[in-house]
């Protein structure tokens, strides 16, 4: 069973969102990293880029597959986790901590997000 912290909100495409002051931090869930396997490549947006909810903001690649990353909320990117450029391992080992992907200043628009209980049920419904 993968970890689903109670204080975060989750998208159907397996991103998590944490509110920190007037910004949000975004990453992929423990379930997502398990499904992908070892991450070997990551493409993140530039600081200042803006996205609508559901837009692709980057690409993540493992030895198994390459996937788009989808913005769970709209807004402007204020920081990206540049430590991941040289080493993507934290996405696998610490997806909710050192493996965070981007920070955004939210525009207020967002995808339909789930709390931890709803996300756990959503994963259950997928047969895992």
């Amino acid at each position, binding site marked *: 069973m993968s970890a689903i912290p109670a204080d975060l909100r989750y998208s159907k495409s397996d991103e998590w969102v944490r509110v920190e002051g007037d910004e949000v931090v975004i990453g992929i869930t423990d379930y997502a990293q398990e*499904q992908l396997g*070892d991450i*070997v*490549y990551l493409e993140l947006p530039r600081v200042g880029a803006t996205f609508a909810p559901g837009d692709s903001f980057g690409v993540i690649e493992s*030895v*198994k*597959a*390459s996937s788009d990353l989808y913005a769970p909320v709209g807004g402007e990117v204020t920081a990206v986790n540049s430590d991941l450029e040289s*080493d*993507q391992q934290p996405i696998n080992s610490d997806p909710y901590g050192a493996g965070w992907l981007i920070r955004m200043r939210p525009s207020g628009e967002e995808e339909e997000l789930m709390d931890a209980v709803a996300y756990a049920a959503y994963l259950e419904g997928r047969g*895992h």
Partner: protein
Amino acid sequence: MDTYEPHLYELSAPGKHGANLPVLDVPETPLPEALLRQDDMNDFPSLTEPEVIRHYTRISQRNYAIDTGFYPLGSCTMKYNPRLHEEAARLPGFATAHPLQDASLSQGALQLMYELQEYLGEISGFDAVSLQPAAGAQGEFAGILTFRAYHLDRNDPQRVEVLVPDAAHGTNPATAAMAGFKVVEVKSDARGNVDLDDLKAKLSPRTVGMMLTNPNTLGLFEEHIVEVARLVHEAGGLMYGDGANFNAILGIARPGELGFDFMHYNLHKTFTTPHGGGGPGSGAVGCTAALTPFLPGPRVRRDTSGAYELFIPEKSIGRLKTFHGNFGMLVRAWTYIRSLGAAGLREVSEIAVLNANYARVMLKDLYPQAIDRICMHETVLKGQIAGAQGVRTLDIAKRLIDYGFHPPTVYFPLIVPEALMIEPTETESKRTLDAFIEAMRQIAREAVETPDLLHQAPTKAPVRRLDEVRAARQPVLRYDAEAFARIREEASQ
């Protein structure tokens, strides 16, 4: 590591060479400065001819190929290539023809292209065919550019969205993106078909069209194909057929009659021209009369005197390839079609489908089916063996190497967890299939009883399990004596 094949750099010694040049008997003239290499060439390997020959021959003997064994790669149709095709492609009139030769001196080659256009059109139910594209992905690109040209020609420029099912080959969304369009993903339903409700929700006046593979990458025939095509057409969109799995329906169903407007044929899959490292490919395309003026050119036609000539269609999207496509592949595909005939092509698909279903039925008690349906030419199973702890599809695939088989496609399609996708093709005998099935069943037993055999596999290949993660994270892309020594040292520990 006794099977380690030294790199050419490691075999090199100063002063060795493969040819003796005669003494210079003319005044020496240096090359212009601009043509001289500036980098240090001192470490360029020096070897004798037999050393080089043996090095490459030894490496080639470690290859696993369709000519040495069973190669059940799903979604790829790794067919045996009959040697008759090679004979035909090497006929001097074809092999030595120059592409700039006048049409009057190339009538045989042009006739072959014309006839192949006609055959492919008949097999698929389309009005016109272009043999230009170099391979399947370029065929897709031709198709989507044709859709774009068609919509612009009708003065309907707001169409910017291409619908692609979540089961699609990765080239489909890549093609749509490369043509400048937005990709909209459509879900699959529980039977592996396009989810009609999701399709309806995503169709709009912005829809360029839909890209669909039928049978799809789950190896399943799209049961609602006629309805899907009707809905897309009602929304003003066009249907693109990805011909990757055409091997399943030759002589049985014609994409043009199923509602497709355009498709590509992978001559290197369905029509047995060399594939997988052998190449090159050929991604000929066919379409309806409405799209014919936009096809890439040149195409071949017959004039009133019966002579063959090249022409560019009136609203053509242009050329995709120099000269006439990969002509050698066209000769091979023509030979395949003519040597089998209509009845033979139908039999190809019937046996391909029979073989895949035989493998499916013989394995599904141990390897759960992704979707419980009769399959077409390939079957998708899951490497989730009951009672096996910590065994993944990757381990099963690696263990198959120890049994002398090339592993099937794994982890594709992406919508199936731990996917194992098996496509035997029509050329395999029951004896080969039984040996493969027995190996798969033995591996399932090992997965429960002695899982370490799977985790350590392969043990009988020239190299052991490769570290894919490290290779991707820390690639060594050119010879580096220190890096090579370090990697060998670590591998021997």
